[in-house]
């Protein structure tokens, strides 16, 4: 569509701009302000320049948290994207069955995040949870509160349960946009199912997959409530991810200066990686 040049359009955009500016700029300014000060209490703050940033970047606890976070997000992407595509491929295309599938798949997405944590907290316990009890019955020693690997696997499983439907629903919409004629042509060309997937479906899912990858990366990188309710970050700090570390620092320990500097770096990392992902995928598309 041809867009008309008209600066009066700013009036239409003004409410959004004001709202987001209020919610984003003012707090950010506060954060930037704190990040360059050492705050001992109300009214007792000293300017320290870039001290906090240097400290945060070399802080071992934070570095560990960062590594854990990357591992987690990486695992999330590796599992949820292919699984989501697979589920989307299995869904009925239309009709009542299709709608029913959509609704049922969407249920995990609509549950408050603390309840997600609670559900799995119960479900994975050996004494009162079906899953925990079941695994133990199979002879496997499973305890997510005591064992690090079990805790990790449980948190991952919970996230897969929680968010794979989002990837599936996005891919489903992408698949539905493919005209029937392409499948008909492939049928006539005697293409195998794999060829159909590789040459017809996958290329057309590109734009949807970008969104899915970005969303899942960002949201998994910022995850807080679900693992917090499930494991509390434990055992030890083995499932403590970035948001929890930051929250504890800011609210729990009231370590404002350090938390502020950490916040800015955190935000920057998310922006940077999202930008990298986005450029990589769209660039790969153009190059071909």
């Amino acid at each position: 569509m041809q867009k008309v040049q008209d600066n009066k359009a700013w009036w239409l955009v003004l409410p959004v701009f004001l709202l987001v500016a209020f919610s984003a700029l003012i707090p950010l300014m506060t954060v930037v302000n704190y990040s360059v000060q050492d705050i001992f209490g109300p009214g007792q703050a000293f300017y320290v320049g870039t001290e906090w940033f240097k400290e945060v970047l070399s802080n071992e606890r934070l570095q560990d948290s960062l590594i854990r976070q990357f591992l987690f997000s990486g695992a999330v992407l590796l599992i949820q994207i292919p699984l989501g595509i697979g589920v989307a491929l299995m869904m009925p295309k239309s009709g009542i069955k299709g709608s029913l599938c959509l609704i049922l798949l969407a249920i995990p997405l609509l549950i408050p995040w603390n309840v997600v944590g609670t559900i799995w907290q119960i479900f994975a316990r050996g004494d009162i949870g079906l899953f925990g009890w079941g695994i133990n019955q199979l002879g496997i020693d499973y305890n997510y509160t005591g064992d690090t690997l079990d805790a990790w696997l449980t948190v991952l499983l919970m996230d897969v349960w929680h968010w794979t439907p989002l990837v599936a629903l996005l891919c489903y919409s992408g698949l539905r946009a493919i005209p029937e004629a392409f499948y008909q042509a492939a049928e006539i060309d005697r293409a195998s199912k794999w060829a159909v997937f590789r040459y017809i479906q996958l290329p057309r899912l590109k734009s949807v997959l970008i969104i899915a990858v970005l969303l899942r990366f960002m949201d998994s990188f910022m995850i807080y409530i679900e693992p917090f309710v499930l494991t509390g970050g434990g055992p030890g700090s083995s499932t403590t991810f970035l948001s929890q570390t930051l929250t504890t620092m800011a609210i729990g320990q009231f370590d404002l200066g350090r938390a502020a500097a950490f916040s800015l770096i955190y935000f920057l990392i998310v922006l940077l990686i999202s930008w990298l992902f986005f450029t990589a995928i769209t660039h790969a598309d153009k190059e071909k």
Partner: protein
Amino acid sequence: MRQTRSKNVGITLFILLLLTPIYWLLNMSFKTNQEILGGLTLWPQNFTLDNYAVIFSDPSWYSGYINSMIYVSINVVITLLVALPAAYAFSRYKFVGDKHLFFWLLSNRMAPPAVFLLPFFQLYSSIGLFDTHIAVALAHCLFNVPLAVWILEGFMSGVPREYDEMAYIDGYSFPKFFVKVFLPMIRSGIGVTAFFAFMFSWVELLLARTLTSVDAQPIGAIMTRTIGASGIDWGVLAAAGSLTIIPGLLVIWFVRNHVAKGFALGRV
């Protein structure tokens, strides 16, 4: 692509696996704490509605649901009200700084909520909005509005400009055209947007808990405080959790047609 038997089996299996933890929660909500702690039973041996009775009779419980519903509704309304004109502007016009504005909006979606905890707390306290529904609604807007603008812009771009011009020629004023002609055409888009706005606001807890204490406490905050002297009240906790799933089900039921169509036609 024909729907084969193996696909049906596969998707059914996946959905069953998906629903099992929820079934387990429901299962527990109908049991007494004794039964729960006594041993594992696949369905309630002594079916009881006591847990639900506790929630419906105790204001400190049910107020949580009401509070959550209030701020979520406020959020959806505000989000739609501000996003619709903005999306229209992005869809129809070029203006100074439009691309930058759009990207800046989207970048807010990428902000970790944890970063905003303290600043929001101080901001809303300082303007006297701490522990109000509107505070949570506004806070959630930071993340919902960019998404809403993005989704709506996609749908609006699917409506050719010719409709706008036709309406002007027919004598419609802009507000009348927008409400009577344009909005009905993007019904699916509004449905999808409302769905996502609801979804995010209803499920988010970190900000909602930080900005409230007593008056506007969401159900999530209340649930995370149920550790009493005798240990966790599993039955009531399970009942509370089960109840939180219902609004989601209702919303998706109401917008199911829009979402199905919207998913197929829209932004993606």
